[in-house]
């Protein structure tokens, strides 16, 4: 599927801020079943941007703005070709449980619990209710997880936020795709299956799916015979060519689309919009990668000299819904 995705992020402040430092994980990954044909990143106020790969192989763009500003606008436009080879995980030969010692240690790192994906009796109980039996095909177990989450949990915005640990969704039984994903990762790890978080986009195609108006998240489980296989607990399905992988990590904190700090006392607002469309063919003259400035004015501060920088604060991250 050939997709064009426009991801807009607007941050606004009630009073001028300064010394913004930001990292973005917005560029789709280059992988065997997904090719990023073009990536354009426009940032305002205009500032130099550097790109690097983090330890998980995600492409990160970072920048600083050292002059007073009241808003930041980020527009990431990607053209991506996706072609998922696997449509049915139950057809894979892998069986539960996985032999821990046969797994590569780098893959075993995705068995470790973290800050959001926390081990707990409630999680263990939920995992037990899957009634996994030795010899069971791993793909069936994965689909059982997806169904279990769909049956027991309700999709609802506003109950959890970007930093919620899974204890919250386990208690309230309500959350968004980020929570569902963390929950499925937790189930996987509890059952000894390496599991990781994927942040990305979902092309809705006639509003077939939930979570399309913003960045989306889903879970990948490790199948030794194949590699990482994606499941979307929010939409109760395996991932298809409609899904575009942007960043992978142990949990949300490894992959937020934007993460930053600033100095100043202004209140912050964040608004995010994602639009996607299927293209009939590859347009001509696409830049492989281009960084552009957006004409947003900065105010005549002292540009990083000895003024009182105010208090340091975190820039809000977008919750993945």
């Amino acid at each position, binding site marked *: 599927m050939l997709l064009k995705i426009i991801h807009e992020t607007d941050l606004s402040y009630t009073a001028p801020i300064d*010394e913004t*430092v930001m*990292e973005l994980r917005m560029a789709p990954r280059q992988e065997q079943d997904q090719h990023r044909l073009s990536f354009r990143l426009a940032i305002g106020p205009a500032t130099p941007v550097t790109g690097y790969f983090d*330890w998980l192989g995600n492409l990160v763009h970072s920048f*600083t703005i050292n002059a007073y500003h009241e808003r930041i606008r980020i527009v990431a436009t990607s053209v991506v070709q996706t072609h998922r080879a696997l449509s049915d995980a139950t057809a894979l030969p892998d069986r539960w449980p996985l032999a821990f010692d046969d797994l590569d*240690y780098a893959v075993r790192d995705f068995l*470790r619990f973290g800050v959001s994906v926390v081990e707990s009796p409630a999680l263990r109980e939920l995992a037990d209710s899957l009634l996994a039996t030795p010899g069971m095909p791993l793909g069936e177990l994965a689909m059982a997880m997806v169904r279990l989450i769909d049956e027991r949990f309700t999709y609802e915005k506003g109950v959890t936020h970007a930093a919620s640990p899974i204890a919250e969704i386990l208690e309230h039984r309500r959350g968004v795709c980020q929570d569902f994903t963390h929950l499925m990762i937790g189930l996987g790890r509890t059952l000894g299956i390496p599991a990781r978080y994927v942040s990305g986009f979902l092309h809705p195609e006639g509003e077939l799916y939930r979570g399309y108006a913003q960045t989306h998240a889903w879970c990948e489980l490790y199948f030794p015979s194949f590699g990482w296989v994606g499941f979307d607990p929010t939409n109760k399905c395996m991932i298809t060519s409609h899904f575009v992988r942007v960043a992978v990590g142990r949990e949300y904190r490894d992959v937020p689309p934007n993460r930053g*700090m600033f100095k100043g006392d202004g209140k912050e607002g964040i608004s995010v919009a994602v639009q996607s469309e299927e293209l009939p063919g590859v347009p001509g003259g696409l830049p492989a990668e281009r960084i552009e400035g957006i004409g947003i004015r900065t105010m005549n501060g002292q540009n990083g*000299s000895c003024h009182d920088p105010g208090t340091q604060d975190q820039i809000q991250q977008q919750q993945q819904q």
Partner: protein
Amino acid sequence: MFSEYHLNGIFDEMFEAAGEPRGHYRSVYTRLAALSNDAFQRRRRMADLSFKNQGITFTVYSDTTGVEKIFPFDLIPRIVPSNEWETIEKGLSQRLMALNAFCRDVYHEQRILREKIIPAELIYSAKMFRREMLGLQVPRDIYIHICGTDLIRDKTGQYLVLEDNGRTPSGVSYVLENRAVMKRVFPVLFGAYRVRGIEDYPHNLLHCLQNVAPQAREDPTVVILTPGIYNSAYFEHSFLARQMGVELVEGRDLIVDNNSVYMRTVAGLRKVDVIYRRVDDDFLDPLTFRPDSSLGVPGLMNAYRCGNVALVNAVGTGVADDKAIYPYVPDMIRFYLNEEPILNNVPTYICSRESDRKYVLEHLHELVVKSTNESGGYGMLMGHQSTSAERAKFAEMIKKDPRNFIAQPIVELSQHPSLIDDRFEGRRIDLRPYLLSFGDKVVVMPGGLTRVALRRGSLVVNSSQGGGSKDTWVLEEDGESPPLLQPELVPEGVTV
């Protein structure tokens, strides 16, 4: 004053047998034995005053009575003959070369894990293993530029490595100050020995820092990044900055712009090339590590990754001084250097290994249990001095989180005479030499911080646990100490 001195059945640094000083201690012994208590107390007051005037202090975190204390100074010097020192120097250099190779390896190829010399599980479960450092190129491949390795001596006098402090070892300022005070208080005795100088340390440290400056800048800007005045080692941070003639800064004094680090000065921004950071990894960059940290510099890791600034020590070196990884240092030496270790480790039980854990739980009363990521003598159980309630508490903690604990047999540290009230008594000591890595070579300061457990019978030398320190004299020569030609004088005009 030596009349009631006991050897206590352990290795004594000064005495071979009761009343028989070792060759290199003879002059010190003669001099001390001849001094009256009054003369001695007078020197002690001189020394104390000197420390107080210079504000040489430290902080004990759990103590609510006051912020700063004087680090107790013990006037009797520890003497290390040159042949002993030669072994220490070689052994420590070898160790640091291996530790640096290890850091380089775990953050890049991971050969030592792939070849299963060290269990990968142990590395990936280390709190100080920084995944953010994977694949990140550091200047000249040096990770631990500055290391403070703790040495102890067992009953036979063999030097053993107790731990490698490869994060932000402190204490070197006391070494320099102790020496300055000793020269003033015992000028004749000091002059009689040929003691190797340590005064070039700040100079060497500055070179070590400049050595990793990006793009081989001719006159790189070096700063010391301190957490601030409430840090226990703040005195040292300001002392070293003064000695080297570099700026002492806090996180808020620095700013990252387009992946370079700048220091705010009255004359505007000035680019910073090398940061000797005395701030822990966790607090260094709130964007990458703890977001609530106000001690660090947002975006610093990006500047570091771009090669525009050097951090000393590198981020992630804590993986090399994790106490559960320490038992593998001899293997690292064999693996990376193809040499046999010159200095031995203390035997160590790793609680995350099932067989070790079983042994530890059954022998808590005769082991020292340590938390793998704590330092400064915090989070420790001294089995033989513990109550059964304390042992039960540790047993629970070990079972709950075995990865976080190791245990070692109790090593009977060597003792050295200390002036306690009006006479000499044996007190346990260790030695922390300071090493500087230049990549292809290691410079070891001749001497180091000899720490003293001033509480009778105590084996814990940490300053936070009531320890003191003494000057350490590394001699140019071996064997007999020189004859004393003139009586010791207290400089005139000093009223104490």
